[in-house]
């Protein structure tokens, strides 16, 4: 009895040690940013050993961010882009995934292969060509121009394809016998089965759109249209930086992501369980 208890404690101790280690690795930098954003002018940022608790705590860095950068305007722009991208991905990746998984048509294999191949092309390699395309469409310096290339991400299409492929054929066959058309089978039978994965796609699309920097930087030139990532870059000093201000900006940019994730967390966890191979 006692031997068993001991084994359990060592086991769980190791487990907790691993968890704590992961926590430090993942949450440490974030915690450091948070502490940096709260440090006042009297704090020595380079003190040895590093101080986590500010000795001159202040919120002035956050007001500094709001003074220097029209955060609300940029959040709004980012939200518009994120909404477009999330909408586009949920709508079109779902449709395309359904088509690739459950419809029979010629070149289906080729079409799937093209999506896989698209995964392998680094965005930086085609960014100039993409910019010329957006420019000839007259969409430079517009939020639509920022959102358009990310409208349907190949990864999301493949995620949806796998999710649809996992639905047992019998389910759809039964619907066919009941006289359901293709749209009814898509909307009524298959989509409800993959809601979790759709939430995952929504989150992926949101985070990618929210965090993208290089593409919006290239497309946008008017400050009015800046997204948050590009706009927050204005916090960098011209000749030297105030790390406190930048840290405060990072925290501000993080809040919407946390809110979005918290709202979708229920679906997200379910989606993760559903992802991959399923009966």
């Amino acid at each position, binding site marked *: 009895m006692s031997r068993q208890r001991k084994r359990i404690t060592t086991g769980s101790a190791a487990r907790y040690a691993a968890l704590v280690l992961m926590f430090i690795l993942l949450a440490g930098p974030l915690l450091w940013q948070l502490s940096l954003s709260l440090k006042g002018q009297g704090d020595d940022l380079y003190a040895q050993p590093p101080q986590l608790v500010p000795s001159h705590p202040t919120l002035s860095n956050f007001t500094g961010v709001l003074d220097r950068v029209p955060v609300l305007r940029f959040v709004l722009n980012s939200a518009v882009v994120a909404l477009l991208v999330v909408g586009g991905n949920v709508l079109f990746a779902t449709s395309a995934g359904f088509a690739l998984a459950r419809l029979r048509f010629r070149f289906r294999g080729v079409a799937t292969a093209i999506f896989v191949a698209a995964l392998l092309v680094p965005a930086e390699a085609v960014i100039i060509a993409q910019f010329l395309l957006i*420019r000839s469409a007259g969409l430079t310096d517009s939020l639509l121009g920022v959102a358009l290339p990310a409208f349907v991400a190949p990864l999301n299409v493949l995620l949806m394809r796998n999710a649809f492929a996992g639905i047992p054929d019998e389910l759809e066959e039964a619907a066919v016998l009941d006289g359901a058309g293709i749209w009814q089978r898509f909307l009524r039978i298959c989509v409800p089965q993959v809601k979790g994965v759709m939430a995952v796609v929504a989150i992926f699309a949101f985070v990618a759109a929210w965090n993208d920097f290089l593409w919006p930087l*290239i497309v946008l030139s008017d400050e009015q249209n800046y997204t948050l990532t590009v706009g927050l870059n*204005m916090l*960098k000093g011209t000749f030297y930086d105030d790390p406190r201000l930048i840290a405060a900006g990072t925290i501000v940019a993080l809040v919407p992501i946390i809110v979005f994730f918290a709202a979708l967390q229920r679906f997200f966890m379910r989606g993760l369980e559903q992802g991959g191979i399923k009966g």
Partner: protein
Amino acid sequence: MSRTFRWTTAGVAASAALSLTLTGCGVGGGGSDDSGAADTGGKVAGKITFQTWNLKGGYKQYFEGLVDAFEKKHPGTTVKWVDQPAEGYQDKLSADAAAGNLPDVVDMGPEAARTLADAGTLLNVAEDDPEAEKDYLPAAWKAMTFKDVKGGTYGYPWYLNTGPSFFNTALFKKCGLDPKNLPKTYDELFDQAAVMSKNCGSKGISMIGRLPTIETFGMYGAKLMNKDGTKFTFNDAKGVELVERYQKLYKGSGFTEESLNALQTGEADSFKSGELGWLPGSSYTLSDLKKTAPKVAESVAMGPLIANTAPNMYLESLVVNAKSKNTATAKAFAKFVTDPANQMAFAKKASVFPSSTGSLEDPYFTKDDATDEGHLRVEAAHQVGTSVVWWPPAFSGTSDVDNLREQIAKALLGKTTAQQALDDAVKYANDRLAKQ
């Protein structure tokens, strides 16, 4: 990533050249921006766009005032001012150049300017206005004149920066050195570095925190390029001597392994954490120290930049788009921004130095007002007068810089000799230049 010297981000070189070739096969039907032929003799009127690089955050009022003053001086003109964020400036420039989207007047360093000039995107401002040369300091004008790009001058020099050596005197005391006898020459620097590491090396303290860069070679006395500016030559006797000094220092563990890979920001961070005795700084290093590392700032002392030849300085310029539809207005505006009065006003606001002739004789730069900042300003301004922009514009801020650092690190680790390391670095840079 802090960007203490603005040129580092000017690493447009390879990427811009690559993307410019793309214009030929780009998507058809381009916009109207690239259709206008240059009408150099035209009237100063119409609309132009002026792009600065990350100057809005600190100097918004100054630039708005500047634009207003110009529009008042030349009725019928409109200047649209845009400011680009700090990160990714080179990517933005190359994308814009490739798409024919470059603004009329653009703020950039000599290296970026040379790449774009080589691709035919920039106006040779000396061609029909040779008189302009006398309005700028010779060293600054020379830095914008590219011998290997038809010998033209592809931009008006704007502001300059240089700075003194900063020393952490607390470390000098702690490690058996006399803070009253700060190093002034390379001999003294390397001698004292050896003493410092002998006494304090075990505590992770050293004098020098970064491998020599291309500017260091210039200041040490190596000849960086041949006369025509077509080939690099810094693998000469002086260059080898410099690397051998670092080798010797490394053997006596006066140079940490970590420093082998340090960039300028890493060097500054080590200095701020009190692990470094010497930091070649700039005119804004002092305010940076006071703001982020007050403890080190208390014990900091300044001395002249250490150089055998001439001290180094960095330059920002204003270039004019060769395809601008209002070339006359663009040129007039670029000259207006870089004229003595406006440069002076900007220098006072931003603690940089004007490149316009005569501006450095202003009492602001010659009279020490007995503050730390005033002392620094006067010293550095005095230094500008003798400084050279050592950075060769043909030296790529990305690949050549990295390669040079890696080669020198190899030499320090004993994997190759100093001569071989520099030969390889020179060959690499020359090969890349020949391919452009």
